[in-house]
């Protein structure tokens, strides 16, 4: 889907026209520079490569530096390839937050916060043992039975158990745009967005 790269800045709340207090996420969306245009004739598919957030040349590999020089831009931290742009963008073009000015709803992709090794109650929403007494001792948040015994004599694949949680790519659909502030490339979105403050997001149209 076409869109922009953004950065999560933080959360606040604003009063809308009805006087309702609305929780909002502040996102810095763009400016994104187009560092490569892929075409069907050349690459077999059409796509556009966007780059966002300046970094220093000394932190950039020479291979990437040559890539950025071709587009005549500063080296960037985040490089993402997106498909489905309607307009024909050229190498070196800059897309700003104005790109969303006709939209009401957006989808946002982010990397969710890592939660570490978690048990089944937090990770899969198991209810645990709903009794603290009646001989429970240390089994309050235990998963219970994993299956039957001699048949099948094994644990089925995909059995929900404890393990690493979070740190996944998460897409949130239909987030409402509350406000666009073009002078700082800021975007105010109703509700929350995956990831920690300062993490990169893909904002899809």
């Amino acid at each position, binding site marked *: 889907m076409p869109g922009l790269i953004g950065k999560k800045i933080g959360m*606040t709340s604003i009063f809308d026209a009805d*006087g309702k*207090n609305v929780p909002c996420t502040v996102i810095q969306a763009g400016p994104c520079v187009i560092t490569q245009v892929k075409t069907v004739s050349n690459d077999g598919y059409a796509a556009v490569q966007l780059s966002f957030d300046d970094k220093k040349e000394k932190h950039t590999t020479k291979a990437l530096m040559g890539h950025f020089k071709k587009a005549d831009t500063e080296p960037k931290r985040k490089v993402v390839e997106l498909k489905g742009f309607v307009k024909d963008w050229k190498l070196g073009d800059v897309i700003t937050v104005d790109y969303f000015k006709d939209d009401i709803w957006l989808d946002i992709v982010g990397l969710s916060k890592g939660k570490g090794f978690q048990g089944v109650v937090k990770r899969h929403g198991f209810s645990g043992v709903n009794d603290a007494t009646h001989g429970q001792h240390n089994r309050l948040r235990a998963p219970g039975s994993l299956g039957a015994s001699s048949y099948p004599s094994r644990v089925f694949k995909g059995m929900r158990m404890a393990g690493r949680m979070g740190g996944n790519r998460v897409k949130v659909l239909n987030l409402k745009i509350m406000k666009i502030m073009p002078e700082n490339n800021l975007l105010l979105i109703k509700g929350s967005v995956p990831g920690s403050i300062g993490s990169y997001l893909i904002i899809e149209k």
Partner: protein
Amino acid sequence: MDLMKVVEKEFTPEINVPEFNSGDTITVHYKIKEGNKERIQQFRGTVIQKKGEGATRTFTVRKMSGAVGVERIFPVTSPFIDKIEVNKHGRVRRAKIFYLRKLTGKKARIQEKRY
């Protein structure tokens, strides 16, 4: 966090809130919408905490309605606050006076500040 300040500046209207602290007795004149009509209700009580910063600041007012304690949390930037009146400055020794919740009657009094 500079960009955060840009946003807060944009959405924090210039508001005339008088200076008050925990322990003070204030009256909040609050706009209430009933259908198409708008009227103003007063809520008078003791400020028991001030919280947050920027656009998300709030304060909590506690009053005794008969024998029942009633607390109300107001956002400072709320467009429904008509005005705030400071009635009394109270002398308390902490910023959050939640101990007031356990006290009733004569024990729940707060000494007035002397200048």
